[in-house]
């Protein structure tokens, strides 16, 4: 299952990348499981641990831990917003 992941702002800087293409194991089918999958990379990726204040979007709509992730989706992770 191929998805595209985007990282923004402080999270982008901490992870050292703005975007990646990823082939997911079939079992990784929600935002919450994807976060755990990425956090397991270790080092700075602990920024995505479930307890961390990170927001997620799937296909440019705000998403929660239970939101489904599937083939071709664009998933984004970012800190709480601070515009305006």
């Amino acid at each position, binding site marked *: 299952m191929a998805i595209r992941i985007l990282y923004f*702002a402080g999270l982008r800087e901490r992870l050292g990348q703005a975007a990646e293409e990823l082939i997911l194991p079939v079992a990784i089918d929600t935002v919450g499981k994807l976060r755990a999958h990425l956090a397991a990379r270790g080092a700075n990726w602990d920024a995505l641990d479930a307890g961390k204040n990170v927001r997620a979007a799937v296909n440019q709509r705000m998403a929660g831990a239970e939101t489904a992730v599937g083939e071709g989706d664009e998933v984004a992770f970012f800190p709480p917003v601070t515009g305006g």
Partner: protein
Amino acid sequence: MSVKVQAEDFDVGREIAAITRGNLAIGAVASFVGTVRGANDGAGVTAMTLEYYPGMTETSLDDIVAQARRRWDIIDALVVHRYGRLQPGEQIVLVVVAGEHRGEAFAACEFIMDFLKTEAPFWKKEETPHGSRWVDAREADDQAAGRWKNP
């Protein structure tokens, strides 16, 4: 109804004129302009860079304006938000709401700003004499947006 995310500055008077021109039902125009302050959280700010999420940011702003439209009887609304590097004193965001009477225009304008602050994907990074830092989300902004949930 219009939403623009752009690097360029905007002219408030011209944007208001563009909304009101030719619509003689409009009697009230409420606006808000956010500007870069020269200090924040106790440190001087020498510049600020605004990052956004192309695509999602515009959709999010469209959705906030549509919510305001459903909630109040307004005639037109405009949001302009800049991205990129800005100096203290520069304009960041403009919200304009036009209606027949002022009560609706004021309420919808403040509603749009409160939700923009808490829902629209923008992030500010400040440059200070001590280095750069990402701005933290403010509890006061969550409270301001939460207000609108109690009718």
